[in-house]
């Protein structure tokens, strides 16, 4: 975004800047609103892809992870992520209760809002993988820690200016930094908590169809819409010709990759399971969106289509692999969509980046750096999550009792049923 501080030849810079900043500011704000709107997207997807009897629980935890996340991240999480690096770039210097009226390329408060909705995205992804068997308290506790520590720390390594960013790790809008972090914490959770009752019978995976795929479809469309804010907003500026081209480019490739993901998942599922599957095609669109997120700024439209297509097919295989081979029960496919496709998309930046990707003659350097980033962040998120969930498990605050799981969490945990 240098072009908002430099100016065109011979023109008084103050004037230019004042309006350029205003333009950047409304762009990032609108993007933040769109990303906030991804919350009902996640809520609808997760509720739709699970059973009726747990719907209140899922909606409740979506409402609460966003609410708790928004508070904690404002209280301190933001500063851990974006404070001045301490301990050699491992963590930002924390301070409390952000309240700056400063302006950089846009208002500081715009920044914390934009970053807040990203943090909440990471938190909400976790819970999808653990749906239908987790105690409500446990959701509250891990939402707290994800936005307090887990997400901010690996976030500091990258967007906060820490060691990975110095290494040259590229993750434009957060395929790894946001999506995979949520997914790897979720993976730790899904492993620790174990599968839902009845998910594996005599070692075979049983289908537990979601109770309302129309709700799920609405959620995916909402997410697709919100993703324009997620990716194009991450340019963090809209004024000047460089930003102008960049945000257009980002929005276009985001759309193309999503489309590619949906088409590939549909075709691949039709080929593999004989029928084109709505649930997998919906996940395929999300896979395309997650995968392009890391390189939305540096991948050409053609590259974006290819990445989307690959991610859509990969998604189908990944869901099958986790579900049927690894027997890790992830009711909404969060690990495959956000974890696997997030890592995949981040790696492919090293291949498809027009700046330094393998295909564009950039050699293996960037790919190597991408791999380091994916692994380091993955390890951090997974093991931090594992520790957290082991503690929750040990203190018996992780999983609901057999009876509650059978009869549904809604009535027992919340005393309310969603459909009356």
């Amino acid at each position, binding site marked *: 975004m240098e072009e908002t501080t430099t100016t065109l030849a011979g023109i008084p810079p103050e004037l230019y800047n004042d309006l350029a900043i205003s333009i950047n500011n409304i762009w990032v704000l609108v993007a933040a609103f769109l990303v906030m709107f991804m919350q009902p997207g996640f809520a609808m997807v997760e509720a739709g892809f699970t059973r009726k009897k747990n719907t209140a629980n899922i909606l409740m935890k979506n409402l609460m992870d966003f609410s708790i996340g928004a508070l904690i991240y404002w209280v301190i999480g933001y500063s851990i992520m974006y404070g001045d690096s301490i301990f050699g770039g491992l963590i930002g210097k924390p301070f409390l209760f952000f309240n700056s009226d400063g302006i950089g390329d846009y208002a500081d408060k715009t920044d914390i809002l934009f970053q807040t909705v990203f943090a909440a995205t990471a938190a909400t992804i976790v819970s999808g993988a653990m749906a239908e068997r987790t105690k409500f308290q446990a959701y509250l506790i891990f939402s707290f820690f994800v936005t307090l520590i887990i997400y901010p720390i690996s976030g500091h390594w990258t967007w906060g200016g820490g060691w990975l960013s110095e290494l040259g790790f590229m993750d434009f809008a957060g395929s790894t930094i946001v999506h995979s972090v949520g997914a790897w914490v979720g993976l730790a959770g899904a492993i620790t908590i174990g599968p839902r009752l009845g998910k594996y019978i005599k070692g075979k995976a049983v289908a537990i169809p979601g109770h309302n795929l129309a709700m799920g479809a609405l959620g995916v469309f909402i997410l697709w819409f919100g993703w324009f804010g997620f990716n194009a907003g991450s340019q963090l500026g809209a004024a000047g010709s460089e930003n102008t081209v960049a945000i257009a480019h980002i929005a276009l490739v985001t759309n193309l990759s999503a489309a590619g993901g949906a088409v590939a998942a549909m075709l691949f*599922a039709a080929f593999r*399971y004989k029928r084109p*599957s709505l*649930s*997998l095609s919906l996940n395929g669109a999300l896979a395309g969106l997650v995968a392009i997120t890391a390189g939305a700024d540096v991948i050409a439209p053609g590259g974006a289509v290819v990445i989307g297509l690959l991610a859509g097919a990969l998604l189908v295989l990944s869901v099958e692999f986790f579900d049927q081979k690894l027997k890790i029960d992830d009711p909404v*496919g969060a690990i495959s969509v956000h974890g696997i496709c997030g890592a995949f998309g981040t790696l492919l930046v090293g291949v498809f980046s027009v700046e330094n990707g393998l295909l564009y003659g950039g050699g293996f350097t960037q790919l190597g750096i991408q791999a380091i980033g994916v692994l380091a962040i993955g390890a951090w998120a997974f093991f931090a999550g594992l520790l957290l969930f082991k503690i929750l498990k040990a203190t018996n605050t992780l999983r609901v009792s057999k009876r509650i799981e059978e009869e549904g969490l809604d009535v027992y945990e919340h005393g309310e049923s969603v459909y009356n």
Partner: protein
Amino acid sequence: MKKIEAIIRKSKFDEVKDTLHETGIDFFSFWEVTGVGKARESRVYRGIAYDTSTIERVMLSIIVRDINLEKTVRAIIKASKTGEVGDGKIFVSNIEESYRIRTGEQGDESLYIKE
């Protein structure tokens, strides 16, 4: 009086209803049930192919005077038969008493509106 319970294909419901009306059977109740039987539908959910032997069906409950039993059963069979597995069943049992709530009428009287 007899109670006829017929479990039929959902897709045949409209035909059965029309045939019953033609036969002069104007009163009955129905609801959706799930049938477990030999008919199977194959489904795939997120990559797990599975056969479901549970299929959505419609249950009809019709109480008729004894003299109408035969023709009602015939009508249902006629309208709901496709010849393929999964056509359903009809069960007949005895009803000891019947009341029309509106008038308090009892027995056969309560089953039809005398003209």
